């Protein structure tokens, strides 16, 4: 392939990622981060910390744990552990997304940056659409998608922080709920059988395991639900039933 042609293709893939972001993810990111910005201000976190946390933590459950525990004056270690555990999903998510980029030597060097840019949103879309793309288009697509989402997320956090006093309770809480519903229906649309099984088993086990151990319930839920789904799917074989 001509280098110029490859470059053009990569550029188009990047733009494709930006366009995909504007189709839906960006609006959801914007709404949820406005909710977060408003929540951060109510928790007494400064504007700068709230905005920067969106870029550096880049995971809503962890961010919410951070500002809410800060507001009640929890000890440092408790805040760090709770926020980190709430974001533990990034471990299996990185492992299942990065191999899609490996054939692309130029992109592979940037893998530690890609995982920092990854959110549930961009991960789910990349897992769904990247396998159907030429290998050298996957990373540019992901970069366009995730950069757009992050820029909008940071701006929206600032906007939400600024508007905080003007939001009644039902608006802030609905913006946070929107994020949860977005992921609920994004995942309900997953078609791969083993992933659907993992979703169903995980949804059933998550709250139960949380009752047993709020800190360790989630990782155990992931391992048990994921492993059970993986083996059940293999037992069921290649058939569609």
């Amino acid at each position, binding site marked *: 392939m001509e280098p110029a042609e490859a470059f053009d293709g990569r550029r188009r893939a990047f733009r494709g990622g930006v366009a995909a972001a504007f189709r839906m993810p960006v609006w959801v990111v914007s709404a949820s981060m406005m909710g977060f910005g408003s929540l951060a201000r109510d*928790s*007494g976190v*400064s504007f*700068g910390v709230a905005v*920067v*946390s969106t870029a*550096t*933590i880049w995971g809503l459950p962890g961010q919410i*744990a*951070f500002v*809410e525990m*800060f*507001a*009640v*004056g929890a000890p440092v270690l408790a805040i*760090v552990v709770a*926020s*980190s555990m709430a974001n533990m*999903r*990034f*471990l*299996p*998510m*990185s*492992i299942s997304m*990065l*191999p899609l980029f490996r054939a692309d030597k130029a992109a592979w060097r940037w*893998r*530690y940056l890609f995982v920092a840019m990854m959110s*549930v949103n961009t991960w789910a879309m990349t897992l769904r659409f990247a396998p159907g793309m030429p290998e050298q288009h996957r990373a540019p697509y992901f970069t366009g998608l995730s950069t757009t989402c992050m820029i909008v997320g940071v701006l929206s956090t600032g906007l939400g922080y600024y508007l905080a006093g003007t939001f009644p309770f*039902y608006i802030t*809480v*609905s913006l*946070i*709920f*929107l994020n*949860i*519903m977005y*992921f*609920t*229906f994004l*995942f*309900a*649309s997953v078609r*791969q059988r*083993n992933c659907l099984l*993992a*979703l169903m*088993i995980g*949804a059933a*086990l*998550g*709250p139960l395991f949380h*009752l047993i151990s709020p800190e360790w*319930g989630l990782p155990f839920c*992931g391992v*048990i*639900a*994921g492993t059970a*789904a993986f083996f059940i799917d293999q037992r069921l074989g290649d058939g569609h039933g």
Partner: protein
Amino acid sequence: MDSGVIWGKWELWGLLGLVSFATYVWRATGATIAVRIVPDGAMFQWFSCLAYGMLAGLISRIILLPVGILAETPLVDRLVALAAGFLVFAAFKRNMLPSMISAVGVFGVLAALRDFGVL
């Protein structure tokens, strides 16, 4: 807020640094392990299943047993909103946008009615 008294400006930035680092550790560990994973291999599938299992567990925990701001809303509101969303999801051939809008719409109206003291 009281926490502002205990926490100076720089301590808060330091705390953000720690929390951000503690989150990045998961991502970076994933990137390190990913080197050994073949796309479409069994390990790749297994880790995808783990990620989905953990995400579903997290979401259903947040809906059923929330902490913080969502905990201030009644469970029945969250469940009614979720049910409305799935009804639309089934009716609109698994189209996620109308499902999400219905669920959040129902939830927002219920929360507003409670805020206004109607419910």
